[in-house]
């Protein structure tokens, strides 16, 4: 199972501490590998430090790649968070 999708980060402060926590929590229990890519840099979406140090600000283009039984769920969970601007704004 491989899934991929690209999102634009819309909330004002980007993937700062709180949104990054929500993102990691949304995928951490899923049975799949999830990676985020920004400008050629890749981070493990299950690592809070990885996600934070991507420094994805508002307007950043993030590609999510997921592989494993829950890959589709992972993409869906992240899509929902991004679209809801992580509950901010």
């Amino acid at each position, binding site marked *: 199972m491989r899934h991929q999708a690209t999102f634009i980060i819309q909330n004002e*402060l*980007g993937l*700062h*501490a*709180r949104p990054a*926590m929500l993102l*990691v*929590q949304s995928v951490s229990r899923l049975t799949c590998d999830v990676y985020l890519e920004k400008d050629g840099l890749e981070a*493990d979406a*299950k*690592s*809070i*430090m*990885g996600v*934070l*140090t991507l*420094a994805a*600000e508002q307007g950043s283009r993030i590609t999510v790649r997921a592989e494993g039984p829950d890959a589709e769920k992972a993409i869906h969970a992240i899509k929902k968070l991004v679209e809801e601007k992580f509950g901010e704004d």
Partner: protein
Amino acid sequence: MPSRNLWKRNSERIKFRGLGVSPGVAIGHVRLFHVSTLDVGESVVIPQNVQSEVQRFQDAVAQTRIKLMELGKRVGQRGEDKALTEVLTMHLMLLEDKMIYDRAIQLIREERYGAEYALASVVREARKRYAGLPDLFRERISDVEDICRRIMDMLRGVHTQTLEDLDEEAVIVARDLSPSDTASMHREMVLGFVTEAGGKTSHTAILARALEIPAVIGVPGISRFAQDNDPIIIDGDTGYVILNPPPEDIKEYRDRQNQYQLRQSRLIQLAELEPITLDGYRIDLAANIEFATEVESIVKYRANGVGLYRTEYLFLNTYSVPTEEEQYRHYSEVAAKLAPKPVVIRTLDIGGDKFAHSLDTPHEMNPFLGCRAIRFSLANQPIFRTQLQAILRASVWKNLMIMYPLISSRSELVQAGQLLDSIKADFRRQGIPFDENIRVGAMIEVPSAVIIARDLAPLVDFFSIGTNDLIQYTLAVDRGNENIAYLYQPLHPAVLRMIVSIVNTGREFGLPVDVCGEMASDPVCALVLLALGIESLSMAPHAIPLIKQVVRSVVMVQLREFGAELLDLSSVADIRKRVQQALPKLVHDKDGLVANLYESNILADT
């Protein structure tokens, strides 16, 4: 540097000065707060011990998790805000982060590192990773350091000191405080904070203001001099910290504490009123700020914008010069939140008594007469250019003004103006929007600038008098030097005549003249400044209500006549006496404010 032990025995009065970041006075006893170091010497284990070393690390992490969860429960029970719970959740997540947990175990297995050294290496790698990021992200390294410190203490079998354990009221003295230190803090027990570290990343500053607890930051050496239970006074307004104060100090500061509380209660009633004199003159009361986060207090105290935005705090306490993007974000945040109210951004005022790790400032015998402020900027054009570009980009809100500090000659304004013009030309070419009418001003704080003000006037749109430095340079008095502090006299005739001279030049050239030094926040000095013709004052936000009350109690016409009389007097003593005599006639006080003015230190004999 004297040996630590020698100073440990010393219980003499020692006075320090730092940056007052949260107003109010705290009088109490010291509680030293130490954090354990994350720098560990290299250590390697023999192959047979690798597995037990891994086990030791895993046990330490497991124990740390239990401690954190207990802490989380207690914080939850105390019903404290969500932010604290979030900090703790973040820390629990970091505890199992691959880049910390898995990486440390990998280093123990593959490199045979001792557990402590493996953990220290993980922190070092993390620091590198965070170093180049924009502020908002880079600052989160403190969470990593924080959690690794807890694991480190567990590995070493030492108890992690927390502010949660406080069992009696205390003034916290520390090198620096991390978010989790403050998260677990027992709030009712903390009277105030003093830290060696300072600057915008100081959580202490932001937290203290939010909690309205007095705080002074940027006091180097304090944690070496102070001992647990030493008596201490901190003044969050002036930035003074007195260790082992004698009874006179305690009495003086008790009085100030009372005054402060009085002032706070008056606040609520005054916020809505306009700063208009009894005869209808409007006086501009603006705020001095250091951090973008202070915008809230401007709203709270109804300031008319920012008269002095001290940008150097963006540069202090960081290991890299802030990028144009970072600066832009700070400036435009302030501009956007306050528009259309004016915001005067002062370009970098580094040197003197403010130094940054990230900037290569020379060591000088006499830093206040050295390469500081505009001199530093002109000598380091790439840094200056970056700052001006960031300001210009943020100027699209049409409320920004640029102010150059420590102007002492015409050529400095010419050079700064040329640089600004070349940036504007670049922006036009590249189609980058900015405010074509952005106004620039000179800070008047050196006597030479007062004397040649007529030559400076055609090059600027406004003057702003920085009284702290103007007094220091006019009277040749280092105000940080206690032996001659009595010579630092805001009401010295030379100072008053300098101010009038600038006001007159401003009128002649149609330039506004404001005052943004500490004089503006002292009620008696503010009254004298109004008498001398100043119509715009900028001060620490919390001082605005009291000054507003002064403005609302005077008749401008009467005050101006009084100002003219003051100029004929030739000594500080005469000026003080005249002010004291005139106060009851000048201040038409309905709410018992005059009593307060008589107590001003400015009028006290020294």
